[in-house]
C-alpha cells in the first residue's frame, strides 16, 4: 500500500514540476512550488523520513514561499522570454540526471538494514543517545550534540546566507520621508 501511495505521489510530483516549468506567470509558479513542496513532504513521510518532512514543512512551505513572494514583489511578476535556446542546458541536465541514476545502481537497496550507513555509528546513536544526551528525539541529539561543531558551521553558513537574502530583499520598515 505504501508503495502505491509513494508511486502516485511521485507521479503528481512530476506533473507539478512540468506545470511549474510551463507556466510563465511567476506568481502561479510559486503556487505550484508550494504544492510541490507539500507533495515532497508527503513523499518523505511515505518513505518514513519523518524528520526530513518536518524540515520540508518549515522551510519548503513556509519560508521559501514567503521569500519567493517577497522577491516577486521586487522584481515583477512575469517571466522574461529566454534569449537563448534551451538545447544545451537541457542536454547537460539530462546527462547529469542519467549519471546520478547510474550512481544509484551501486547503492544498497532502499531501507536495507545491512547497508554500511546503518552499520557504522547509527546503532550507537539510536541506542545510547537517550542515556548519553537525554534528548527524546535521536535526530536532534545527533545534530546538536554528536555533530555539534558540524551543526554550528552549518548554522553560520545559513545565518550568513539569511542576512544576505534579507539585505537583497530589503525587508525592513522604511523610515518616513524615504520613498
Amino acid at each position, binding site marked *: 500500500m505504501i508503495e502505491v501511495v509513494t508511486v502516485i*505521489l511521485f507521479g503528481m510530483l512530476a506533473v507539478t514540476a512540468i506545470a511549474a516549468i510551463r507556466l510563465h506567470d511567476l506568481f502561479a509558479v510559486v503556487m505550484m512550488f508550494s504544492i510541490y513542496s*507539500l*507533495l515532497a513532504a508527503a513523499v518523505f513521510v511515505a518513505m518514513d523520513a519523518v524528520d526530513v518532512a518536518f524540515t520540508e514543512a518549515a522551510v519548503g512551505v513556509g519560508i521559501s514561499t514567503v521569500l519567493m513572494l517577497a522577491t516577486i514583489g521586487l522584481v515583477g511578476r512575469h517571466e522574461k522570454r529566454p534569449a537563448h535556446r534551451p538545447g544545451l542546458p537541457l542536454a547537460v541536465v539530462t546527462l547529469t540526471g542519467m549519471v546520478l541514476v547510474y550512481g544509484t545502481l551501486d547503492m544498497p537497496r532502499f531501507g536495507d538494514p545491512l547497508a554500511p550507513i546503518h552499520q557504522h555509528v547509527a546503532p550507537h546513536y539510536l541506542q545510547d543517545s537517550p542515556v548519553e544526551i537525554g534528548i527524546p528525539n535521536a535526530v536532534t541529539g545527533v545534530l546538536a550534540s554528536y555533530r555539534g561543531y558540524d551543526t554550528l558551521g552549518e548554522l553560520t553558513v545559513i545565518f550568513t546566507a539569511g542576512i544576505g537574502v534579507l539585505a537583497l530583499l530589503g525587508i525592513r520598515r522604511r523610515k518616513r520621508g524615504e520613498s
Partner: protein
Amino acid sequence: MLTLTLLVLLGSMALALLRAVKGPTVYDRILAANAFSTKTVLLITALGFLVGEAEYYVDIALMYTLVGFIATVAVLKVSEFGNLGQSGAVRSTPAERPNK
C-alpha cells in the same frame, strides 16, 4: 476503510492539482494550493495510522496545518498589496492584471 480513505485522499489531491494546473486565475491556484495542503495534512495523518507510527506523523501534520495557513495568508497579502506589507507600499497589485 483506511486504505479507501487514503486512495480517496490521493484522488482528491489529483483533482486539486488539476485545478492548479488549469488555473485560470491566480486565485484558483491559491485555492487549489490551500485545498491541497488540507488534503496533504489528512493524508499524512492517515499514513501514520497505516504505518502504525501515528504519534510522529501527527506532529508533522499539525505543523503543516499551521504553516499552510501562514503561507496562504502571506500569499494573499502579496496578491492584495503587491508585497509582504512593507510600509509605504501602494495598493497596485500584481494580481490585478488578469492572468492569461
